[in-house]
C-alpha cells in the first residue's frame, strides 16, 4: 500500500526513552523550585551520610567538662547539658528523619497502590469494604491518629513509622482509587478486553503504569509530612526516646534551657525548617513538571 505511506519523520536515535529522560533530567534540574530544594537538601544529605567519618564527638558520647557550650569550631552547634555535641546529634536525628520519611512513603505507596487499584477496578463489595475502613481513618486528623496509635503501640522508630503510615495509607488508597476509576472507562481498556485480556493484565499493564506519576508526587509529599510528624511526636515525648537522638527530642531537651543555651533547641529547629522547606519545594517542583497546567 505504497500510496498510503506517510512521509515518516526521522526516527530519533538513541531510543526515545533515553532522549525523553535526558530532556526530563534537564528540565528537572533547570526548574527553579527544584534547584532551590537541591541547594537546601543536598548539603544536609551529604553531611548526614558522612557523619560517621567526620571528625567530631559521637552523638551519644558525653563530655561533662564541656557542658552547655556556645557554638564553636569544635562544636558547630554547641553542646547540651551533658556535654553532648548538638551538631553530631542533629545529623543522627536527620538520619532517623530520612529513614522515617522513606519508610512511610514506601509503605503508603505499596499499600495505596494495591488496595486502591483493587477498590477502583473491582468496585462493588471489595470497594465498599476497603472504602469504609478508609473513610473511618480519614475522619481523624493524621497527627491525632498517629499520637493515638503510638500511645497504643509504644515508642521507638518502628511504631512511629507504622503509626504515620497508617494515617497516610487511606489517603493513598483514595488517590489511587480515583485514578483507577477514571482510567477504567478509557477506550484502551476496552480494546484489551475485546481480546479477553485477564484482569491481572489490565491492572498491571494498563492501569498501574498510568497512575504512577501522581502516586510518586503524593509519596514525596507524604515523606516530607512524615518527617515533620516524627519530629512532632518526638517533641511530645511519644516518638524516638532519648538518649537516641531525633530532631524532635533534641528540641524538646533544649527547651528547658532556652534562656541559658538557646542554641540547643534553635539550631536543630532550623535544620527541621530547612528540610521541610526543601522537601516542599521538591514535591512542588515535581508536581509542576508532571502537570504543567498546575503552575
Amino acid at each position, binding site marked *: *500500500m505504497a*500510496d*498510503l*505511506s*506517510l*512521509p*515518516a519523520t526521522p*526516527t530519533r536515535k538513541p*531510543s*526515545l526513552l533515553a532522549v525523553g529522560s535526558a530532556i526530563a533530567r534537564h528540565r528537572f534540574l533547570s526548574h527553579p523550585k527544584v534547584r532551590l530544594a537541591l541547594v537546601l537538601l543536598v548539603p544536609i544529605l551529604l553531611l548526614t551520610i558522612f557523619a560517621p567519618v567526620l571528625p567530631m564527638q559521637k552523638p551519644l558520647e558525653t563530655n561533662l567538662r564541656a557542658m552547655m557550650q556556645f557554638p564553636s569550631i569544635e562544636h558547630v552547634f554547641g553542646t547540651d547539658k551533658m556535654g553532648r555535641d548538638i551538631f553530631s546529634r542533629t545529623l543522627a536525628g536527620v538520619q532517623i528523619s530520612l529513614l522515617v520519611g522513606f519508610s512511610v512513603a514506601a509503605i503508603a505507596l505499596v499499600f495505596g497502590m494495591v488496595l486502591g487499584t483493587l477498590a477502583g477496578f473491582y468496585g462493588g463489595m471489595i470497594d465498599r469494604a476497603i472504602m469504609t475502613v478508609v473513610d473511618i481513618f480519614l475522619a481523624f486528623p493524621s497527627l491525632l491518629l498517629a499520637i493515638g496509635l503510638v500511645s497504643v503501640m509504644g515508642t521507638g522508630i518502628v511504631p512511629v513509622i507504622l503509626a504515620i503510615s497508617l494515617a497516610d495509607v487511606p489517603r493513598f488508597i483514595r488517590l489511587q482509587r480515583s485514578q483507577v476509576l477514571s482510567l477504567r472507562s*478509557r*477506550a*484502551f481498556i*476496552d*480494546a*484489551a*478486553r*475485546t*481480546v*479477553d*485480556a*485477564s484482569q491481572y*493484565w489490565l491492572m498491571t*499493564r*494498563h492501569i498501574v*503504569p*498510568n497512575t504512577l506519576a501522581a502516586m510518586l508526587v503524593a509519596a514525596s509529599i507524604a515523606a516530607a509530612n512524615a518527617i515533620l510528624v516524627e519530629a512532632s511526636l518526638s517533641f511530645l515525648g511519644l516518638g524516638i526516646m532519648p538518649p537516641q537522638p531525633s530532631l524532635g527530642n533534641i528540641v524538646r531537651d533544649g527547651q528547658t534551657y532556652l534562656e541559658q543555651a538557646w542554641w540547643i533547641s534553635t539550631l536543630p529547629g532550623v535544620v527541621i525548617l530547612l528540610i521541610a522547606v526543601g522537601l516542599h519545594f521538591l514535591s512542588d517542583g515535581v508536581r509542576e513538571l508532571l502537570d*504543567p497546567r498546575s503552575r
Partner: protein
Amino acid sequence: MNYQAPVKTTLLELRNLHTDFQTSTGTVKAVDGVSFAIERGERVAVVGESGSGKSAMAMSILRLLTHPGKVAGGEVLLDGRDISRLSEGQLNAIRGRLVGTVFQDPMSSLDPVMRISKQMIEPIMRNLRLNREQAREEAIKWLGKVGIPEPERRIEAYPFEMSGGMRQRVMIAMALSSRPQLVIADEPTTALDVTIQAQIVEVLKTLTEESGAAMLFITHDLGLVARFAHKVAVMYAGRIVEFGRVEDIFASPAHPYTQSLLGTIPSTAMLKSERLPQIPGLPPDMRFPITGCAFKERCAAAHDRCCVEAPRLSQCGIDHTAACWAPHGLGEGATLKAERPDRPNRPFEPDGSVVVELNALWKQFDTSRKMVVRAVNGVNLRVHKGETLGIVGESGCGKSTIARLLLGLEKPTSGDIFIAGLAQMVFQDPASSFNPKMTIGGIVAEPLVVRAHGSKPERKEAVRRLISQVGLDPAFAERYPHQLSGGQRQRVAVARALALNPSVVVADEPTSALDVSVRAQIINLLVDLKQELGISFVFISHDLLTVRYIADRIAVMYLGEVVEYGAAEEVFADPRHPYTKALIDAVPVPDPAIESRRTSTPLQGELPSPLNLPTGCAFASRCPMATDRCRAEKPALPTHDLARQVACHYAS
C-alpha cells in the same frame, strides 16, 4: 419584524492580524497575517482544519484568547474604530453588546450553577438599559424565538436540565438578545447531531437575517458553509489562502487546498468503486518557520517558486482572492484526483455465509434511581461475509451500545449474538484508545501477546507487517501515541484491530475526530482492507455521506430500534421511513446550488428520553405524518429475510 436590508458598508475589518502562542517548545504563529472584511449583515464562514488558526483568529478579535495566546500585531477595525488597542474595560463594553459570541460547547459556556434567567437577564439589563421586568420579558421573547418550548417556564431551568441542542439555543438567545452588530460563532453545531445541527443553523440564519447582524462562522464542515454563508475564507497554517463568495468558491475554487478539500468529501453520486481522493501528508508544524507556501508539500501543482516565496492573496475573480502562484491552482476546473486507479467495480454479492447475527437483542441499563434506560429494543441484524453494514442514527439511538454488545463489552439483557470468528474494534477517539505509556509496537502486539500467538520474533514480524499494512512506516513501532497525529493513530487502531485476523471489525465513528483532509485517507484504507482481506465491517457513524459511500447495507436506528434497513444506495435514493428521510434531508451538501434550493424544514424536536418509551411508534412524537394509529400501535419491522425493511405503517 424590524427587518433591515443589509447596507453594504464594512462592519469589521482585520488588517494583517498576528496571534502567537508562546509555548515551552517555541512560538506558534497561530495567526500569521490575516486580513479580510465583513460587510454589515453578511455571513462569513471561516473553514480550516484544526490547527489552521481559525479559532485563534476569531478569538483575537475580542481578545478572548486563552493563555499563552497573545495578539502580536495588526489592527481590528469595528465600525472603523481600532479595537485591538483598547483596554480590557473598554473591550468589555463591546463584548456581548456590539459583538455576541456562541461557542462550541454550550455546557462550558453556561454557568452550571446559575439558572438561565440569571445568566440572561442581567446582561440584557446592562446592554439595553432595561429594568428587570422588561429584561425578563425580552429574555423570554428571545428564548421563544430560538425555539425553546415554554420559554416562561424553561427560563428558570439550570443548564444541566437541558439537552445540548437546547443549551446551544440558549447561547444563541443570549448572544442575540443584546442586538449585536456582529455574532462570532465558533463551531456552534459541531457537538450536535445532524438533525439538531440543521435546526440550530436554521435558527441562526433566520434570526441574524431578521436583526441585520453580521456573522463570523467558524467551522470545518464544508456542507454547512454551502448552506449558510455568503462568503467563505479558507484558512491553512495561520493564513487565509482563499476568500470569496460562496458560489464562486464552490463552483471554481482557485487554491489547491480548497480544491482538494472539496474533492475529499464523498458526493451523493459517487460510486463505491471510485477511490475517494485524498490529500497526502499532514498540515505543517506551526512551531517552525515556514519558507514558501505552507501547502507545498501536499500540493500536486507545487513548483520551484512555491518553495522559496509565499504567495500573497491576489485577485482571481470578482470578490475572489486566492494565495497561489498558479492562476488556477491544480488546473482549470480541477479538483483533486485520486492517486490510485479506481478499485475494480465488483458489485457486492454475499456468498451466503453469515458472519454476525443479532437475534431479538435487548439491552437495558439500570440507573441509580431505579429507572431503566432501554438502549437497544429488539434488534435483528445480519452481516454477511465481506459485507459492510452501516449503522446510522442520532446520539442516544443505541448504535454504540450495539457495538459494545458485539464486542462482548456488555452483556445483552436478552437475545442472542452469533459471531463466526472474532470481532475487533476501532474506537472513535484516537486519543484515549491507546495506553500512553506503551509504544505503538507494544500496542499492536498486545492482542497477540494476550492470546499467546507465536514467539517473540514472530510477533515482532507480525507487528511490522500490520503497521505497513495500514500504510505506516514500520519505524513507527518505536514511537509513543502522543507523537502521532490523529490520522496516524487511527491507522494504528486499525492495525491493532487486524492483529488477530478478525472476521468482523466494528468501527464506531472512526473518522469523526479527524480532520477533513485526513478523513478520506482513513476511509480509503478501510475500504481497501475490506476488499483485500474479505473481512466484514460494522461501520457506525452519524456522517451519512460517508456511510453511503462505505457501506453495502444500512440500518437506520431510532431509540434502540432499527426503523429501516436495506442496500445503501437504495436507502439513500429512496428513503421510505420518515425518519430516514429527515436524516438524509438534514445532511448539509457541499454545494450551494443544492443548498439554496432546499425547501424542506428540518426535523423538529429531539430524541425522546429512553427512560420512558412511547407505546406506539417511537418516532411518532417528531413525525410530520404521524396519526393516532402511530401513537397507539407500534409498527413492526418485517422479518429479516427481506432485503428492504421499513418499520412504518405508511411506508410503501
